[in-house]
């Protein structure tokens, strides 16, 4: 029973990873790519690690899997936020269909160009 449950968690996790990678390919813009891929891949890898925890139980490897889940949930959004900030400051603009760019407006209201479309 536990083996089957851990297998289900691992397969669902890998499916979420696949969806995140497809989002990384398909989306038109770096911010959309971050949005689509980071959340999906974080949740999918957490699913895989929870499946590993169910498989091993409260042994050394299982507790390490739980620690890895907590670590991943703490660090992946921080890394994504730093990447988005660095990309925006390096001059990458949002794609044409974007509605607004609040970060540029907050930083320099005069220099922010209104986006078309």
């Amino acid at each position, binding site marked *: 029973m536990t083996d089957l449950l851990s297998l289900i968690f691992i397969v669902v996790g890998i499916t979420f990873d696949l969806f995140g990678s497809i989002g990384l390919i398909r989306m038109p813009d770096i911010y959309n790519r971050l949005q689509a891929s980071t959340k999906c*891949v974080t949740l999918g890898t957490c699913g895989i690690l929870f499946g590993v925890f169910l498989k091993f139980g409260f042994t050394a490897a299982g507790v390490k899997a739980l620690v890895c889940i907590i670590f991943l949930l703490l660090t992946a959004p921080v890394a994504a936020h730093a990447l988005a900030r660095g990309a925006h400051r390096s001059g990458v603009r949002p794609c044409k269909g974007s509605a607004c760019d609040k970060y540029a407006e907050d930083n320099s209201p005069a220099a922010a160009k209104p986006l078309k479309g």
Partner: protein
Amino acid sequence: MKFLRWLAGMIFIFGLIFLIFGYLQVSLQTKLMLYLLICFMLSLVRVFRGPTPADRSVATDIFGILVIGFCAILAVYTGKDWYMDIAIAWGLQSFIGVLALAKFLEGRNFDD
């Protein structure tokens, strides 16, 4: 044209999944690893043809998170504990590397 690109991509990805789970006569462990290798391949495509350096950095970040899951699957099916150590260490290295890449994209010093 856009529809044709959609169709080609979907046929490619779902054909790979169908090939792995339907035709290959290998163990379940190898099937799961090949299923995860599709994700690695897709993120590497974005590394190769990203238009800006920021896109490549994002794909590197995703690649580093995927390696953690790969090490976890290896730990299940080989029964060795130390693959989880590799997963935690790889997560730390990937996090610090991505922060350094973000600083580098901003064009600032690392001790800022």
